[in-house]
């Protein structure tokens, strides 16, 4: 009897804990994935769920691992990506096949599609298509004089142009072009056909039409929520409501609102859910301005760098002092810190994922490790390089080790130690932009998204504030230096 009661109590406690746990939603670092994730997040929030956003994760494998490990509960995935990059299947499978396969072999589920297929496609100007009677890829066969401008990547891929041309018997000789320039070229009628993703925002902007893949050459990339089975059943049911709610044109429209009109993901998702009646019309409207978003991201960025920098100072300065007083360990310690510095930042971030998951924590740890060396090395050098006569005198006149450190060695070392902290700060401001790849947020979110979209403006929106932050940090440290270091010591150092 007592045993049963205990079990009941345990189950009750567990389920209560489950309800209060926020649902963690992730997404990859490109616009469309952000929009879909934001739509799911706001829908769940509108139904009273707590949601934790881990957006902008580095790529498919990082998202997938995070889902498997339970770091996130949901992220938007594409059937073709699941088939090829994750499950590594040899042959094409239908969505239903994939769903069954997942159910039998994993604790994950791919829901029914949002309703659109984001695959490779060929496109041309709408009026040109009308004038030349082009509506399918097969129609291209009879027009050998058409000028094709294809991205280099698409020309090189195994399943790219070569395979497509052979499959459809296309006679044209394509030109390799930088993808972002192709839109312009197509718009100015310098080329007639280019490759795109079927939900690209530019399709609307330049009034293009997709040529139908009438013989089904391209793999299918149906977008759908990818979910852990242990997700709350009611939450699953809510997400199922999104099935079939967005078609290709609508997705192009949503992408364009972000990429071209400059609206935020949150505002776009909010408007979408209202028009579909999935969110109460009278609820608080989300219309975060671009400036507010920039401010928020800058703050996140500053928080990341300053917390990591302070933590690094707290360890590296005492460690530098210790290393100076125990010359035997100086080499191994400094070599080790140097080794950390040589690990490429993206790789270091990747190493952190199995240890600390995704989000702020692993980013802080990685940034902390990066900041150690300059501070540690400069602290050591600052103390080591003090004039030996001064050292001898300070010992000979009767100062204890602590008094020497406190009154002579540290004050004399301050300019060099400050220079080390300054170096670390600037490195961190730069490196923190990469932390967006593992969901730590900050100005890197613009850059990560911009890189994925090949959108220079978006990249600049992150890069310029980051550069300004770095300059401000430099100036700030110069000011601190002037305040705490006597002028003649600075001149001495310069000499």
């Amino acid at each position: 009897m007592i045993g049963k009661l205990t079990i009941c109590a345990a189950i009750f406690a567990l389920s209560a804990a489950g309800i209060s746990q926020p649902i963690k939603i992730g997404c990859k670092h490109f616009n469309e994935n952000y929009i879909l994730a934001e739509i799911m997040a706001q829908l769940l929030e509108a139904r009273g769920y707590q949601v934790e956003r881990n957006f902008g994760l580095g790529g498919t494998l990082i998202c997938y691992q995070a889902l498997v490990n339970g770091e996130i509960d949901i992220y938007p995935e594409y059937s073709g990506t699941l088939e090829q990059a994750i499950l590594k299947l040899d042959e094409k499978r239908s969505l239903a096949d994939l769903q069954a396969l997942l159910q039998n072999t994993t604790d994950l589920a791919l829901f029914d599609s949002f309703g659109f297929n984001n695959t490779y496609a060929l496109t041309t100007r709408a009026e040109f298509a009308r004038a030349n009677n082009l509506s399918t890829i097969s129609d291209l066969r009879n027009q050998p004089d058409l000028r094709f401008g294809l991205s280099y990547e698409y020309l090189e891929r195994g399943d790219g142009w070569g395979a497509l041309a052979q499959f459809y018997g296309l006679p044209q000789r394509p030109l390799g072009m930088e993808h972002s320039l192709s839109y312009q070229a197509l718009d100015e009628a310098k080329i007639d056909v280019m490759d795109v993703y079927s939900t690209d925002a530019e399709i609307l902007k330049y009034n293009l039409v997709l040529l139908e893949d009438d013989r089904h050459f391209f793999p299918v990339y149906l977008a759908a929520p990818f979910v852990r089975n242990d997700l709350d059943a009611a939450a699953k049911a809510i997400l199922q409501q999104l099935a079939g709610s967005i078609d290709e044109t609508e997705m192009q429209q949503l992408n364009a609102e972000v990429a071209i009109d400059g609206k935020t993901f949150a505002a776009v998702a909010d408007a979408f859910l209202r028009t579909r009646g999935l969110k109460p019309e009278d609820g608080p409207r989300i219309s975060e301005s671009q400036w507010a978003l920039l401010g928020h991201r800058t703050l996140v960025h500053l928080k990341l760098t300053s917390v990591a920098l302070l933590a690094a100072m707290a360890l590296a300065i005492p460690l530098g002092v210790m290393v100076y007083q125990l010359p035997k360990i100086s080499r191994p310690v400094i070599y080790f810190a140097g080794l950390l510095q040589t690990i490429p930042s993206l790789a270091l971030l990747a190493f952190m994922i199995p240890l600390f998951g995704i989000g702020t924590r692993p980013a802080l740890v990685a940034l902390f490790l990066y900041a150690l060396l300059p501070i540690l090395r400069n602290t050591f050098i600052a103390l080591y390089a003090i004039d030996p006569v001064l050292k001898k005198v300070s010992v000979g006149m009767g100062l204890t080790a602590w008094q020497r450190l406190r009154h002579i060695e540290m004050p004399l070392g301050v300019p060099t130690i400050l220079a080390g902290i300054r170096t670390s700060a600037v490195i961190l401001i730069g490196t923190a932009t990469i932390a967006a790849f593992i969901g730590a947020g900050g100005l890197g979110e613009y850059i990560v998204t911009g890189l994925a979209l090949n959108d220079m403006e978006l990249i600049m929106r992150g890069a310029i504030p980051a550069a300004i932050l770095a300059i401000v940090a430099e100036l700030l440290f110069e000011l601190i230096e002037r305040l705490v270091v006597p002028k003649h010591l600075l001149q001495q150092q310069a000499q």
Partner: protein
Amino acid sequence: METIALKNISKSYQGKPALHQITFSFPSNTTTAVIGPSGSGKSTLLQLINGLLRPDAGDIHVYGQLIDYNGLPNLRRRIGYAVQGTGLFPHLTVAKNITLLAHLQKWEHEKIKRRLQDLMELVDLPQDYAKKYPHQLSGGEQQRVGLCRAMMLNPGIFLLDEPFGSLDPLTRNEIHREFLKLQEVEARTIVLVTHDLREAIKLARQIMILNQGKIEQVGTQKEILKNPASEFVRQFVQLQLEDDISYAGT
């Protein structure tokens, strides 16, 4: 009770002997100059007295007690120490340089201020120099600040390691005068390491000549000039004074 007594002291660096079987007691409240060619062990001898170096063999008594190598800071505060160059701390003002030890010893503020003023007066440093930094002072002025610092806690012993070596002759003369004045006002046991016999003759009542880690002779200037104890001393004295003559001639 002797202020500084060395008994059977030997010291070598990596197998190379620097001092060999030295036994000597420095007379109290008197200046003893230690002189010899470079490598004779004179600087080593000095640094043994304040524990910067430890002898391989032998006993060192300071203020009547065997040196306690676990309590060196306490001993060193009772020994003034000045070196070639000045060893002034560039980040501290003149006043802070001189009074650092007194602050650490928790002297009363008034007492520190009075002692600082007295010392600066004693060595003819203007009082408004207290706020200056060492780099704003001439070499001779820096040297005086160094002496003030060494004297701050009024130690009974002074160890001077070629403190006037880098000064030009004029400034050195001036400092020598200050030095003799100081010794008149506050007499103490001074060990002055120098390579300059003229300086030794001028400042010290007693001169010790070292060569290859051994004492060649100890005596007053008269004894050393009139009765050199060895051929080395005779030649050393001759060489140094010849130098003096040629200097006087120019």
